[in-house]
């Protein structure tokens, strides 16, 4: 076999492998149960769910209809990614000004056991007042996590305590309640701002 032929085989094998990898990962939404999201279609994404805001107001998927919103999961016993996301969002919304009125940011706790409405109400005073913290009982929490094809898990740690694993990204939903993409607060600031402006319809 000539060297040229060997080289061709090697190249085509590499291309085939690469295509396989790309196909394998396409449609994959990080941190979410992509099988479920894809299997049931986008119509199911975002609902149904029913939760209580830190202000005490009842909020469900129907209440949110007609205005874009963004959703991220977290808990107050998280010292790192959760407050960072909330502080960053606060900064970004200040920069956007009234444009940020055009979407509803939702912070949904995956730790309703410790994150009572009272805890959330105090916690949220540090952030942009347009950000809504939501909690539900165990069944309601399970339902909303499922609605966004997200993930959470209670993890026991030493001393009888626990921590929560949860989907890290921000899920964007358009005014019709359709999935409109994801956002990572660690992306370049301009990218994040562009995504938020697009969500706001600017």
């Amino acid at each position: 076999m000539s060297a040229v032929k060997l080289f061709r085989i090697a190249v085509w094998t590499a291309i085939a492998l690469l295509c396989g990898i790309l196909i394998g990962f396409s449609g994959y939404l990080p941190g979410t149960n992509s099988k479920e999201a894809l299997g049931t279609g986008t119509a199911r994404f975002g609902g149904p769910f029913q939760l209580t805001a830190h202000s005490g107001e009842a909020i469900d998927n129907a209440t949110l209809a007609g205005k874009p919103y963004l959703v991220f999961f977290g808990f107050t016993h998280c010292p790192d990614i959760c407050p960072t996301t909330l502080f960053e969002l606060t900064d970004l919304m200040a920069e956007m000004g009234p444009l940020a009125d055009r979407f509803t940011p939702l912070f949904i706790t995956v730790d309703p056991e410790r994150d009572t409405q009272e805890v959330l109400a105090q916690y949220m005073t540090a952030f942009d007042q347009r950000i809504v913290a939501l909690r539900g009982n165990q069944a309601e929490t399970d339902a909303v996590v499922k609605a966004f094809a997200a993930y959470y898990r209670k993890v026991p740690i030493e001393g009888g305590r626990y921590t929560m694993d949860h989907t890290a990204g921000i899920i964007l939903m358009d005014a019709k309640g359709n999935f409109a993409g994801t956002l990572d607060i660690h992306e370049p600031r301009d990218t994040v701002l562009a995504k938020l402006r697009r969500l706001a319809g600017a």
Partner: protein
Amino acid sequence: MFKKTTAVLVAYVTLVGPASAHDFKVGVIEINHPWSRPTPPFAPVAGGYMTLKNSGPDSDRLVQVTSPIAARAEIHRSAVEDGVASMRPVDGLALEPGVTVDFEAEKLHIMFIGPKQQLQDGDKFPATLVFEKAGTVDVEFVVQRKASEPAAEDHSGHGSSN
């Protein structure tokens, strides 16, 4: 007899000032710019960060952190894997000889549990670090909104002077 309160007080007096980066040292361990994020009111936890450098020939370990501002403090490592954020306690942080451990870069943080006060931008608070070999050192955390700028100059400074 060594009085910890005095040491903390001295640290306070000497450190209150315009210094944006601050260093501490115990034996061969250098502690660079301990800082913490501001917390929302009544936040159950606060995260602290720093850079540790072991310039000695032997490995050491950060085994304990305490602070009068928190009920307890632990070393935690966060991860985002397949889009899922997680966090686990670290049982002692290994410091290999000649290696610098940047908490932020390595997704590590000191988890201050049950902060007794809300941490606000510009605040400073004391903490004590215990290393297995180098011993105990009092440090001061600075509360700042943004992660510190990469201390590139500091690092090159260490490199050329050591």
